[in-house]
């Protein structure tokens, strides 16, 4: 399945198989983005706006920017660590991470 990279998917725009594959991938990317936005809002609002005022202050906005950067960096760290671990465990042929 390695041949199905982005270039492979756009090479045959009218192929029904490729169309479905592209739609599935878009839907997955969309879902992923939605989840990230939800988490960013949840965490950063809680930390940056402890007492909501009449408008967002400059300080709160600055906190949001830092918080988003930090959260996304944390997401990438977790992603690397998690993927490395499940790869290691599936190579060992052990139980893997199927329980999650």
């Amino acid at each position: 399945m390695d041949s199905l990279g982005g270039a492979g998917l756009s090479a045959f725009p009218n192929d029904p198989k490729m169309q479905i594959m592209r739609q599935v991938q878009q839907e997955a990317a969309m879902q992923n983005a939605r989840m990230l936005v939800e988490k960013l809002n949840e965490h950063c609002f809680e930390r940056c706006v402890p007492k909501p005022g009449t408008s967002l202050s400059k300080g709160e906005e600055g906190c949001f920017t830092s918080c988003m950067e930090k959260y996304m960096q944390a997401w990438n760290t977790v992603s690397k660590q998690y993927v490395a671990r499940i790869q290691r465990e599936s190579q060992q042929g052990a139980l893997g991470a199927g329980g999650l």
Partner: protein
Amino acid sequence: MDLGGSSIGSNVDLSKISERDKQELQQFVLNESQKARIQSSIHGLTDTCFRKCIPAGTIKKGALDKYEEPCMRQCVDRFLDANMVVLKELERLRQ
């Protein structure tokens, strides 16, 4: 993007797809759902570990510092260790 969750393939004539392509699609969807499951786990883990590793209150710096970064990594590993303990214990109880 006007694709609702169930509308994938609705504008595609499925009868034009060969059996071989259908099998390939099945495998593709299987792979994609596994990827989606993994990503969903990553979201959950980031959520849990961010709470534990990044001290409460206003956030001043946009980067993870030298305590937070290892904490996030350890949090992932210990969470998975703990997950394994739960599975093993349940397995033991089942016997």
